[in-house]
């Protein structure tokens, strides 16, 4: 089932790749979170890769969304890793981050 505003693709055993689209609405994250987690859980996923390659800046609102998604994933034993973070996004995020984020980070999906 397609979820509006994102591409969620199974990329291997237990791994899912989430690519946010421009149309993704994080103002009301509740329903979106539920749909993402439900789909990964249905496919017996254990790892969610969140692709940030199209995002030049991560502000507090977007970080809160990532944090919420990562913590929701944690509650049902799914690990979330943000990949392809742009240098500008890392720079802005590092400025207001006060503790270790709930998600892991990696350059890309491991081979």
């Amino acid at each position: 089932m397609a979820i509006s505003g994102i591409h969620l693709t199974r990329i291997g055993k237990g791994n899912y790749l989430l690519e946010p689209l421009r149309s993704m609405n994080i103002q009301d994250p509740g329903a979106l979170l539920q749909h993402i987690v439900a789909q990964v859980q249905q496919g017996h996923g254990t790892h969610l890769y969140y692709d940030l390659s199209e995002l030049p800046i991560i502000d507090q609102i977007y970080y809160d969304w990532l944090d919420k998604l990562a913590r929701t994933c944690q509650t049902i034993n799914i690990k979330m890793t943000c990949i392809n973070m742009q240098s500008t996004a890392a720079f802005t995020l590092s400025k207001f981050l006060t503790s270790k984020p709930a998600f892991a980070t990696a350059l890309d999906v491991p081979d």
Partner: protein
Amino acid sequence: MVQKKEVAEKLGALFSLKVGNISGQLEETAREFFCADSKLMDDEEVADLSSEFVNLIAGLLSSKDPHRRTSPQFHALEAFFSGLALRMLMRGGNVDDVVRYAQKLQYSLIDALEKDSGIAFTQSRSVLLYFAQHFDELIMAVFRTYLGERENTLKAQEAELRETSTPITEIWDGVLTLPIIGTLDSSRTMLVMEALLNRIARDHARAVVMDLTGVKNIDSQVSHHLIQMVRAVQLMGSDAIITGIHPEIARALVSLNIDLSGVTTRASLSDGLKEAFLRLGIHVSHKES
């Protein structure tokens, strides 16, 4: 207004008749500034320069409104002086010569016109004022070019300095080293961070070893920047390793309550590299004899 127009019309008529002669007389002025000691131009170039100037000023005087300093004819004259200034600066000349040449050119032009026409222009306030106003603006064009060129040079030097002060090296596939030498202030930290993050993105570096052996002191603000830099590196998905922390710096970090628990530190650059290789599964050993 009518008088103004008359002045320009009369000068225009004189110019159209005497272009050849005047150009020859103005060559002397150019030779004095660009051929004598500095040897910035040869005779042929001086002749071209003077003839081009005379044509341009004749074009201005024969234009619809020779007093308008926004006309295409006046802009052409400005471009002529800007181009001349740029050419002389590139050949090692200085702006003083170009400015003095422009000033002298003004007097030479009036002299040449007086000689050729027999009319005492130096007695005519309106003619002198006309040339003075136009030449002042042309000298301004020379200064604008000079300042623009200086600014470009400074920017280039700044970029070079930035490049050399942050020598980020890929010491192994996916391993970057960044030796930090000297004082780390906020603006420099920002530059280092920007360069480092861009390099991680470009090279897809999996580990970064930041060596602080060359940093002798650190303050609260800088230590926070350092932690921010480490955090940004980690957010991009790379491992950050800090090496070469002097005892004084370690003491300062502790007294500043800087939390280094999430940061990997090693005593020396070589230890840091070993750690980076270990994390990437790279094994470096002595060649078996």
